[in-house]
């Protein structure tokens, strides 16, 4: 990759196509981009694989930041279904709410949602981290294999159904737990992990507040479904 400029490149999606935007982001000429007029368009800023900063000023449709790697992406608006799906690394920050399947199957990286995340948040999570400052919807963390999800608000029905080894931290209420998902002891290492995730999400004050940390419950797998002859 050639040396990148420090000058922020402005891309107006009322003038450029999503395809042109993604082509530029896949072979970046700058360290920093600002995207305007996203107007709920789909597949915005997908497949980023370099350490660049991208700020999207507006709402985005399906699959924004899909399969994201390395970069730092901010959405100053709402995000449609599948935001940061299969993220591998880097950081995606949504200042509004996220629709369903946020960070589905994410293998790495951090997704921060300032608002709420809808159903199936962190479905089949494979090592990525998610911090939701509001609530999450039903069937979140379904079959989640690895990674961590922090929910500062409430969780919907069937949290962590058929979960494997992902760890869930929920501060508020849980409408119901899914099959094989149970509340677990919050040990010191889990408090440290939770505090670090909150710091990473920019919640420094809360991370240093032991009362705040105490208000979380950890959830994970009872591991009773790991073999076919053991409980189906």
């Amino acid at each position, binding site marked *: 990759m050639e040396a990148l400029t420090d000058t922020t490149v402005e891309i107006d999606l009322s003038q450029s196509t999503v395809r042109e935007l993604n082509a530029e982001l896949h072979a970046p000429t700058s360290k920093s981009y600002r995207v305007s007029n996203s107007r709920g368009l789909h*597949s915005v800023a997908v497949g980023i694989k370099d350490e660049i900063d991208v700020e999207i000023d507006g709402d985005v449709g399906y699959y924004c930041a899909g399969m994201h790697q390395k970069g730092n992406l901010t959405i100053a608006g709402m995000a449609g*279904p*599948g935001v940061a799906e*299969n993220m591998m690394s880097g950081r995606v920050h949504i200042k509004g709410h996220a629709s369903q399947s946020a960070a589905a*199957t994410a293998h790495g990286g951090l997704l921060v949602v300032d608002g709420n995340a809808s159903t*199936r948040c962190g479905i089949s999570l494979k*090592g990525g981290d998610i911090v939701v400052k509001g609530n999450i919807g039903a069937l979140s963390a379904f079959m989640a294999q690895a990674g961590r999800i922090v929910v500062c608000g409430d969780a919907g029905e069937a949290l962590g159904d058929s979960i494997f080894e992902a760890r869930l931290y929920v501060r508020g209420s849980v409408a119901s737990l899914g099959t094989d998902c149970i509340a677990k002891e919050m040990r010191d290492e889990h408090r440290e992990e939770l505090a670090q995730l909150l710091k990473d999400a920019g919640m420094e004050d809360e991370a240093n507040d032991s009362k705040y940390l105490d208000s979380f419950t950890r959830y994970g797998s009872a591991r009773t479904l790991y*073999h076919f002859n053991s409980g189906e």
Partner: protein
Amino acid sequence: MRSPEDRGLRESAIFDKASIAAIQHAAETGIYDIRGWGAKRAVPHFDDLLFLGSAISRYPMEGYRERCDTDVTMGAENASKPMELDIPITIAGMSFGALSAQAKEALGRGASAMGTSTTTGDGGMTDEERTHSDKLVYQLLPSRYGMNPDHLRQADAIEVVVSQGAKPGGSGMLLGQKISERVAAMRTLPEGIDQRSACRHPDWTGPDDLTLKIQELREITDWEKPIHVKVAATRPYYDTKLAVAAGADVVVLDGMQGGTAATQEVFIEHVGIPTLAAIGPAVRALTEMGVHRKVKLIVSGGIRTGADVAKALALGADSVAIGTAALIALGDNDPRWAEEYEKIGSAAGYYDDFQAGQDPAGITTQDPKLAARLDPVAAGKRLANYLQVLTLEAQTIARACGKSHVTHLEPEDLVALTIESAAMTGLPLAGTEWVPGRNGDL
């Protein structure tokens, strides 16, 4: 000792030996049977069709001399880098995990020698298969095990797997015996657990979502790659229309005979429709949408011979895919391992316990000692030989029907041998002009 038949004993047609054994197994264990292979029951198949060849009304090509091309291009309409195959026979998706690394390498070697593609499976792409497959299709499955955008960009085509013929509506299984350290790491799962894949995609739920998913995949890969959509044969007319409407370059249609590494027996034998019955509705859907031969149709499930290949193409497919037959070509069920098959309760020619990881041939296993038995170079050569024979056989039939390209074969070259196959394919019953349900009495 005389056999029961020689002693005048009569086996029940309903409660035959296999049915009795299945009841006894269920009664003893309380667990349903999981196995590999594909449907074993007899269903209408390509054997129920015949080619007419040429006579006075049709003019043949010279068998060994005149040109009869076999190439097929995938994704020419949308992809900036279409996938060009030398033969209309591809290797179906089979995972590392289900298969040993040596088997995946052998598939790559054999397919590459013949200028065709292999396909990854649940669990992601291994270095062995990328290195040894000149043309590699990367599957996007509901589980997304090992899904990696770097691999997506390295692939020659992308296949969105909705379902497979052995288990439409079901999902992948890999039992603990095969979840080795490497397999577990690739799938982000604990070692040794019985792994079940998701049966639904995590981030899309219907045809409109699929359209956007395909758009995302094209955007991530800069519109370079052909996008396949694989569906089990259940409602092929509607599924083909929806896949095409969603933007697929290729529809992969997997009949109920399609193989599996591990699926419930009840699923394998009782869900989905035969390959023969599925092709017609899919071709009708493509034709009605004006994209037949543009959006490509790959058919799989029970392809064994060049005649099967030619019949699938004549019914309107652009290519076939093989799985079970490819494994047999590598050395699966080889009589040289007869004693070992007996030791694990099976027999050469019958072995289907691909889920168990004890494959004496070193193909459906993760046991390093067993896997080391398969020489990828020699096995790859066997597969190349087999692919060559399939191709030569299909060409032989195409020339006999007067065709200079195997995909020029057409329904008019075929007749049906049975009323069932005539009704399913819309071909006339041999010796008549009768198509059941379409043109009156016999």
